[in-house]
């Protein structure tokens, strides 16, 4: 019975109805590939499991829509053509080319990524589509949203752990917050740029500002968009944004992340505020050696000057708001009177 079925299947497979009903093809393939003992020994000595979990595939985004042969092209021949991969990793890297047949946009965007650059440098451990998305059991990558940082954390464990302790990571974990950024909100998903380049650094205030400058979004959490505005108008932000326009990725100026941290950004309110305040002089000293404890007061902690915050600065501003129109207006008046008199005299 078993032998007869195998012969029948081989005959079916040899006819390879690639354009046939996906369900039929899947059943044909699974009739062998559901066998948990089905495996292949690669030239490296590693074993490659050839088993596909029916449930995992059928409930994936492709389940019931795509047939096995859509990705595993050429496998309609039986016996199957020999694999050229010598290791499991090589097999995996070679397989991801299959995705571009349908997902061409994301595939090409990935080619601009730091991951693709690492791969083309010969780093076979650089992730390909299937390393992040899975292979047979592909599910929407952002469901739930917290899954994204776990996906990145498979390789970037240190950063992922830091993120989990940050204000953003905690809100994500504790409240399933849908507004806080996960990895891909800052780094993007496919065209993931190397985050150590100068241009990435000089652009980073815009990145933070895309949320922290959004009044409607910040209002939900009682946060002020003044943090972004005040940064951009004071010395550091001014220098950084002017340097960014040069496009050479070079700035000596402190960016958001230089004071707040990158992945481990703590909450700047509540108990943390006092900690940050106490550390402020040290934070300043990392760029301004010799700064004394009164130096941080030169920085208005993102407050706009008012009678309660930085009253001296506010008073000086007021003096000039009054003085400039008064003096210039007076001078203009005197000029106009003089001109008028000259005209009258003629």
């Amino acid at each position, binding site marked *: 019975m078993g032998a007869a079925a195998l012969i029948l299947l081989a005959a079916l497979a040899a006819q390879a109805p690639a354009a046939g009903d996906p369900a039929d093809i899947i059943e044909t393939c699974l009739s062998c590939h559901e066998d948990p003992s089905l495996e292949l020994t690669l030239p490296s000595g590693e074993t490659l499991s050839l088993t596909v979990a029916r449930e995992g595939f059928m409930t994936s985004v492709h389940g019931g829509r795509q047939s096995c042969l859509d990705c595993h092209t050429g496998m309609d021949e039986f016996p199957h053509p020999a694999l050229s991969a010598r290791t499991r990793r090589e097999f995996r890297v070679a397989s991801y080319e299959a995705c571009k047949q349908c997902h061409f946009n994301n595939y090409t965007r990935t080619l601009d990524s730091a991951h693709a650059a690492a791969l083309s440098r010969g780093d076979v451990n650089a992730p390909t589509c299937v390393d992040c998305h899975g292979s047979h059991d592909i599910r929407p990558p952002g469901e739930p949203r917290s899954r994204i940082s776990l996906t990145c954390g498979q390789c970037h464990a240190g950063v992922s752990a830091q993120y989990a302790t940050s204000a953003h990571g905690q809100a994500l974990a504790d409240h399933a917050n849908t507004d806080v950024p996960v990895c891909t909100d800052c780094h993007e998903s496919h065209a993931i740029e190397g985050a150590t380049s100068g241009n990435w650094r000089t652009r980073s205030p815009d990145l933070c500002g895309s949320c922290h400058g959004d009044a409607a979004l910040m209002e939900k959490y009682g946060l002020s968009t003044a943090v972004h505005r005040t940064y951009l108008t004071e010395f550091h932000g001014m220098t950084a944004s002017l340097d960014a326009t040069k496009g050479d990725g070079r700035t000596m100026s402190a960016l958001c992340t230089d004071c707040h941290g990158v992945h481990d950004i703590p909450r700047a309110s509540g108990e943390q505020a006092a900690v940050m305040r106490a550390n402020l002089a040290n934070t300043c000293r990392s760029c301004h050696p010799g700064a004394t404890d009164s130096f941080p007061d*030169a920085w208005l902690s993102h407050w706009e000057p008012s009678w309660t915050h930085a009253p001296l600065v506010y008073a000086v501003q007021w003096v000039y708001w009054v003085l400039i129109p008064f003096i210039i207006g007076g001078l203009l008046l005197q000029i106009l009177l003089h001109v008028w008199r000259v005209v009258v005299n003629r």
Partner: protein
Amino acid sequence: MTTMLQRFSTRQRVEHFVVMILFTTLCVTGLPQKYFQADWAAAIINALGGISAVRWVHRVAGILFTIVTAVHLVVVIAGAVSGRMTLTLVVNRQDFVDAMTTLRYYLGLSNEQARFGRFDYRQKFEYWGMIMGSLIVILTGLVLIYPIEVARWLPGQVIPAAKAAHSGEGLLAFLTIIVWHIYNAHLNPDVFPFDKTIFTGQISEARMKHEHPLELEGRKR
């Protein structure tokens, strides 16, 4: 033939020329820093080689301006103490009387015109405005060049306050020059298009009689 009289010494003419160059440099490199978010300001900053270059030029010009101001004050104070210089720019009661007389004349309330000495009240106003303004921008400018040192002795908030003052005073100075000085030295019908006296040192007797009659009488006495 017009009789020309000497009004400004070589030192005064050189001083004006140097201040003119430095003031222009400071405005060109300073105002774009104040309005850096405007497109025109960013264009100037980039044209001059970026913000670091602009700050560097501004600071060098500022230090040179500080030296010129210090030299001026030393010369004036030394001149006054030794008695070799008459302090013709000191503000006195007569200046307020002259201002009121001029105002009444402009308004057509009287036909009497104030008769001025070597410097009229407007020139004194501009001089003292410049001296006070210079002291403010020099002191606040030094605070901004040396914030760490300043914060060693003074509260940190002095630094952003100095920036606000420097920025406001700079704008005030710029507008005063644009509005007042350009009018008095160029657009004023009495001197249009260009009062050359501060460059040549010479003024015609007719103009001196019209603008500084008391000085002319003093010279002839």
